[in-house]
């Protein structure tokens, strides 16, 4: 059944706003230390042992900005859908990266929020990282679905 003209309820709007705020806060918080310390972040990427030094350095330059732009983009109508899709893609990549690191028994820093070393820190808890990213992915998926549905309703109207 078409939902043309059916506006979301107040609780739906609040839920969507909360989801966007959570995603924006998480990704902006994650991006800023990486933007300020790209060399340390490149080392963290290198430690995942999935790419070489040069690739790590390039990723360390662009990835944090991608996270930050997409985090802010969730609130910008001109960037909303693409931002959600990119963030979902990033979360899938992160889940795969952590999964392979866990499977290979790598004792490395996550690098997620500026934790660039395992020195003086407890061991990386891969189960928690996977669960956290899965929850964020589910949140991201809800936001994407809502945005795409809104876009379809606008087109039909």
């Amino acid at each position, binding site marked *: 059944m078409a939902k043309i003209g059916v506006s979301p309820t107040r609780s739906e709007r609040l839920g969507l706003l909360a989801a966007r705020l959570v995603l924006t806060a998480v990704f902006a918080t994650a991006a800023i230390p990486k*933007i*300020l310390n*790209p*060399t340390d972040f*490149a*080392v*963290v990427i*290198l*430690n995942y*042992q999935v790419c*070489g*030094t*040069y690739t*790590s*350095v*390039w990723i*360390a*330059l*662009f990835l944090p*900005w*991608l996270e*930050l*732009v*997409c985090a802010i*983009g969730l609130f910008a109508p*001109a*960037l*909303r*859908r*693409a*931002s959600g*899709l*990119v963030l979902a893609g990033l979360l899938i990549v992160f889940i795969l990266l952590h999964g392979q690191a866990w499977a290979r028994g*790598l*004792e*490395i*820093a996550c690098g997620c929020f500026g934790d*660039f*070393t*395992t*020195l003086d820190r407890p061991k990386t808890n891969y189960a928690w990282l996977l669960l956290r990213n899965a929850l964020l992915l589910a949140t991201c998926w809800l936001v994407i679905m809502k945005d795409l549905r809104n876009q379809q309703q606008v087109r039909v109207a």
Partner: protein
Amino acid sequence: MSLLREFFLLGILVLAGAIVSLFLGWASHPWHGLPIKPGEIRAEDVRGLDVLWLDARPESAYAKAHIKSALWFNPEDPEAALLLAADAWLTDPKPIVIYCASESCATSGELAEWLRIQLPDAEIYNLQGGWAAWQKSE
């Protein structure tokens, strides 16, 4: 706005951000690779050289695999490990390169600094990226 345009706009903004990082000096030029810190040496630069290798990873990791001819340097008991390393170095003086598991492991960097004090006449380096970088460079 079409989805393609949204992606294009995202790309432009990300590129602008990366340029800001380079312009403000937050990031070094990526085409130069990973900046090397004082006292470090890259795996590709040391490969093939005649050096005294010291492996500062846990014993289990050393037993599993290590750089050929590397001596195990117990980070838990550096005093005892120093005797072995000093003996090897005095027998056949050559540059010493110490490594641990990976770049995020700071053990080898700290041990390299400590070794420079203990063996002031020795030329001591810390392998950038450690065992992980060595394997990558193979």
